[in-house]
């Protein structure tokens, strides 16, 4: 302090350690949990809430839970009975897809994972071609695998599809198909041609203005009326068309956001080089805009993935639909909560990892520019 004799030369005061009370665990707790009376109160309140909620949940889900067994009698009913999930696992994952054919779904999953890995390898050079394969080639292969009826594979009707498998089919197909429509709509909305612009705005705002459930109702009761006599679409396909148009409208807005972020100078420069409108878009604007909108697309996908659960209302059995269905099995009544917790866990894992990925991309975009 000031009355101490300085032990150092002018300007060479050594670095002192901060007062012990402000550093280390003690300092951290003081600064982050006890810095004021209000803070102390909040800390106590939060601690109490945690004490109230966490131990019972842990007790129920882990400590008292039944993990091993083959039927209902193995459930002690003291905590969660995960045997229930194990018992119905196949239905929850694949619906009523024939047991002997489930390998086809698993094979398609494996193919997707293997094909998608190189996209995340920075040094991989043929990302463009791989993406084209994933967006066009892969769906065709998957279609043949899932539907069967050729190459010696048994035909599996879509009403047998279900569970997580159906959730993935609807959401992935919905998003993949909505991307091109969304791009066209976004370009239309930004176009100088009043008629085109009006039609695109009308289309986008219509689908964005109504709830998905009315879209699904429409697909199940109104679409059949639109078709000429004798033409018939499978329920799943009708739902898919509805989902696709619905998400295309949202996709259009995401893409429009990306287009708006591209400076006007880019278009002008491309036009100055003599590129036509479509060449300008394809070669200059879209590649930049699409990169910008990937986080937005991922977010749209997360939304769609969660919204897929609504198809159970028109009688398609996605993951949640399957959980609801097995919950009504007379032998297994009263396991609702286990079913919901499991479904929530699966959805959460997908959505959380995707939202993390999109945040990561956003950060990369912000620093990369």
């Amino acid at each position, binding site marked *: *302090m*000031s009355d101490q004799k*300085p032990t150092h030369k*002018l*300007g060479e*005061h050594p*670095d*002192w*350690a*901060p*007062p012990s009370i*402000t*550093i280390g665990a003690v300092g951290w707790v003081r600064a982050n949990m006890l810095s004021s009376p209000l803070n102390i109160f909040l800390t106590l309140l939060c601690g109490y809430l945690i004490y109230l909620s966490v131990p019972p949940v842990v007790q129920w889900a882990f400590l008292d839970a039944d993990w091993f067994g083959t039927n209902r009698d193995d459930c002690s009913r003291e905590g969660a009975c995960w045997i229930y999930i194990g018992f119905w696992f196949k239905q929850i994952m694949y619906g009523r897809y024939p047991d002997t054919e489930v390998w086809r779904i698993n094979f398609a999953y494996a193919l997707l994972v293997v094909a998608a890995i190189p996209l995340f390898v920075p040094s991989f050079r043929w990302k463009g071609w791989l993406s084209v394969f994933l967006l066009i080639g892969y769906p065709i292969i998957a279609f043949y695998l899932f539907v069967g009826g050729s190459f010696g594979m048994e035909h599996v009707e879509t009403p047998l599809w279900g569970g997580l498998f159906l959730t993935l089919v609807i959401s992935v197909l919905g998003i993949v198909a909505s991307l091109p429509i969304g791009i066209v709509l976004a370009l239309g909305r930004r176009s100088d041609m009043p008629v085109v612009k009006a039609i695109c705005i009308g289309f986008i705002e219509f689908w964005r203005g109504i709830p998905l459930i009315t879209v699904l109702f429409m697909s199940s009761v109104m679409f059949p009326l639109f078709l000429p006599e004798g033409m018939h679409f499978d329920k799943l396909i009708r739902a898919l068309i509805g989902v696709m148009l619905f998400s295309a409208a949202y996709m259009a807005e995401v893409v429009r956001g990306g287009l708006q972020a591209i400076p006007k100078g880019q278009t002008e420069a491309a036009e100055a080089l003599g590129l036509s409108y479509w060449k300008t878009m394809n070669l200059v604007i879209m590649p930049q805009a699409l990169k910008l909108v990937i986080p937005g697309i991922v977010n749209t996908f997360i939304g769609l993935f969660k919204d897929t659960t609504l198809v159970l209302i028109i009688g398609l059995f996605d993951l949640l639909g399957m959980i609801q269905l097995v919950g009504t099995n007379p032998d297994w009544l009263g396991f609702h909560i286990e079913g919901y917790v499991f479904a929530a866990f699966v959805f959460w894992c997908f959505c959380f990892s995707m939202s993390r990925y999109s945040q990561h991309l956003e950060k990369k975009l912000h620093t990369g520019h």
Partner: protein
Amino acid sequence: MSEIAIQAPTKEMTVTDDVMINMIGVHKWYGEFHVLKDINLTVHKGERIVICGPSGSGKSTMIRCINRLEEHQQGQIIVEGTELTGDLKHVEQIRKEVGMVFQHFNLFPHLSILDNLTLAPIWVRKMPKKEAEEVAMNLLERVKIPEQAKKYPGQLSGGQQQRVAIARSLCMNPKVMLFDEPTSALDPEMIKEVLDVMVELAEEGMTMMCVTHEMGFAKTVANRVIFMDEGQIIEENEPNEFFNNPQNDRTKLFLSQILSH
């Protein structure tokens, strides 16, 4: 750095013996990092102090401790006889008497210029709105932009915004003004208009502490220049001596760098 020609003070600027700010053995840490080391500084009423030093030396931190935008962990800071402690009443008391001008102006973008100026007098000094507006208009005239009163900060140039910021602080009728690099976000042609306002303020006897690298201002207006490095006050002298005959090697190095620009 090129020196901007500023109007020479026309009046004699007097320094009194009353102590305005007293910093005694002040230390501050950011986490483990020792930013301010044993700062001892006494500022008298009417003094104009310029603080300079390399980037990261703790200049901003030091003046921000004076109105407790930063908290110090050791030592005493006494402003006008009131010590800065955790006591909120003391902090409020001191902030009323100490004005501050920031590098990036920090005007309130959602309020008109006039409302920017009257906000504090109305809510802190409990001044009637009419009166607050009169005071504000007078000050806007002093900083030479009365015609902008109804506009919003976003509509003004940087130099005008900084003058509004100075006027906003003056509205509280402070006893000390702190400036943290008030001109370094400005284009050269705007620097002068801000410095002119500051010179006038000095002539009127305002106690000022100013972090700046405008050496022209330091030479003509300051009565003391302080050089900081690595969180310490290394040299402290009246301007002539400071510039022509620096004592410390680090000061010499700094001055040679800054003047050769």
